[in-house]
């Protein structure tokens, strides 16, 4: 482990390199620009490949190609750029091509704003493309967590042969923090990973052992069979659920939040607890699969409400929260959007209003 002071975007890129990512293609879009920029300097140092694609659309297909040929590959973008990549991501899912991508989310919809937001939640967790495929989606709330999740994402992607999304945001992407960097995978390890995929990757094979990678089927029966296998894979992710519970046991008010909003909310919980107010926090780290069962640990006999804190208007994350709460208590919201960053004071005010009501 080595401790360094790094910007979120660059730390995410370095984590990917250390995880064995040796192909990155991306396109400029604020606020994720430092990811491609970092890769453009770093990849030559590790014998990897960086390409600035002519568009996000091309970049994701370059990653698809590299993934089809067994290389750990990554792309990144922000909100509207992610929308452009959704077809390519669907192809990766459809053809079972492992890859990792990062959305450094910003205000939306459309061009929206270039400042940070959490307005791609439903896009990220429910429908990142066509055909109903799903992905493991991780939402870091610190630069350290972004590093750790990105590093692990490549293993998940290879394990499942499926794309994995790191759902960050403009705050995490552009803030600097000290981070412990994970160990660098050796070239031998990376070569072994690529070699382990030789049976199904398109590198060239002898006659009789040829590989044909198709993101779909001519036969409807084959396509349905594939869908059924994929559905089983998605169910299996129950074991990969990750969330943080903070002061929930005796909580009279539980904040539900993810990513940077949850981090701000956590400092609010600490302040409120010092004032004797029993507030807790549930922070999903995997936002797909969503940790619904985490909300079963709330003592609804004591808990007056769940407060959804997110940087999205209209609220999106709240939909999963309400599925989890199952009407066992009211759900309130504390929202901002458009690039405005969640303010702790707003959270404090919202909590007090609920608790004193």
């Amino acid at each position, binding site marked *: 482990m080595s401790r360094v002071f790094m910007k979120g975007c660059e730390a995410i890129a370095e984590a990917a390199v250390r995880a064995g990512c040796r192909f990155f293609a991306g396109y400029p879009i604020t606020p994720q620009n430092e990811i491609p920029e970092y890769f453009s300097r770093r990849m030559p140092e590790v014998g990897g490949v960086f390409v600035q694609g002519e568009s996000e659309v091309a970049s994701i*297909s370059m990653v698809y190609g590299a993934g089809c040929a067994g290389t750990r590959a990554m792309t990144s973008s922000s909100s509207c750029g992610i929308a452009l990549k959704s077809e390519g991501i669907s192809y990766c899912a459809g053809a079972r091509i492992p890859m990792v991508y990062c959305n450094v989310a910003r205000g939306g919809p459309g061009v929206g704003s270039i400042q940070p937001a959490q307005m791609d939640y439903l896009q990220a967790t429910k429908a990142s493309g066509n055909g109903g495929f799903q992905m493991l989606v991780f939402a870091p709330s610190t630069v350290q967590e972004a590093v750790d999740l990105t590093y692990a994402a490549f293993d998940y992607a290879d394990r499942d042969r499926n794309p994995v999304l790191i759902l960050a945001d403009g705050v995490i992407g552009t803030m600097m923090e000290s981070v412990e960097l994970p160990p660098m995978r050796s070239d031998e390890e990376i070569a072994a990973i690529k070699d382990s995929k030789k049976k199904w990757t*398109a590198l060239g094979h002898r006659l009789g052992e040829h*590989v044909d990678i198709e993101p779909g089927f001519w036969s409807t029966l084959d396509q349905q069979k594939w869908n059924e296998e994929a559905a089983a894979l998605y169910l299996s992710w129950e074991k990969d659920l990750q969330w943080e519970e903070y002061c929930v046991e005796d909580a009279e008010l539980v904040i539900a939040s993810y990513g940077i909003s949850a981090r701000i909310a956590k400092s609010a919980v600490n302040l409120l607890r010092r004032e004797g107010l029993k507030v807790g926090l549930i922070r999903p780290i995997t936002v797909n699969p969503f940790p619904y069962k985490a909300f079963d640990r709330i003592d609804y006999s004591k808990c007056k409400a769940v407060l959804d804190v997110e940087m999205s208007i209209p609220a999106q994350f709240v939909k999963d929260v309400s599925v989890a709460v199952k009407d066992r208590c009211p759900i309130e919201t504390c929202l901002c959007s458009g690039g405005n960053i969640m303010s702790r004071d707003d959270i404090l005010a919202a909590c007090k209003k609920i608790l004193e009501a």
Partner: protein
Amino acid sequence: MEELVYTRTKAVFENAVSGFCPGCMHSTVAKLIGEVLEELDILDKAVCVKGIGCCGLQSNYFAFDNITAAHGRACAAATGIKRTNPASLVFTYQGDGDLASIGLAETVSAANRGENFSVIFINNGIYGMTGGQMAPTTLVGMKASTAPWGRKPEEHGYPIHVCELLNELTAPYYLERTSCNNPTNVRKTKKAIKKAFQNQLDGKGFSLVEIVTGCPTNWGTDALGSLDFIEEKMLPEFPLGVIRDKSKED
């Protein structure tokens, strides 16, 4: 006892009787590609990136590694493969809709970057698989399911000449347009494909072979009729020949 002097290349599946229509030259080109791969002894290094359209049916024909890229993105996917696996012999196989319409940016950009892979571009002036819509290379006056009264320049613009377009770029190494409408042109097509693949093996950069073919079904004619249409209408619009060959300057 006679000796077998011609048979279909083993690079095409033995039992391949694909969905191509009678007279369609996709399968002709599949044979030529296979023959070249055998002759260069690179069958076990070949990776084809197919576009979407009739070109995609080649998965029924190609007995070597191939993938399907998103519509128009074959040159991007090929970039990803070739750059991470320079030892593979990578080529895209695309129709005119895939390469010159939705994929024009990817094609021009890959050519402009001088990517060291080869492009086999099948130009039959129409969208085949989806049922005869107008393509970027549809001729003026030619009817299509989305140009019911024929292509009109004032509304639909003019046919795109991909080789000439790419000839404006500095990086591309070899650009040739051929056809498969007669034995001489079939042999020239094979020679061009071989040259394109050899360029790649020699690390010379981007090569593209544009092959003018027919589409009997969507041209509303039959196989032999499509040969006439190629001769009389397609080739005057898309003149055959070498548009660029930097090996001449080497």
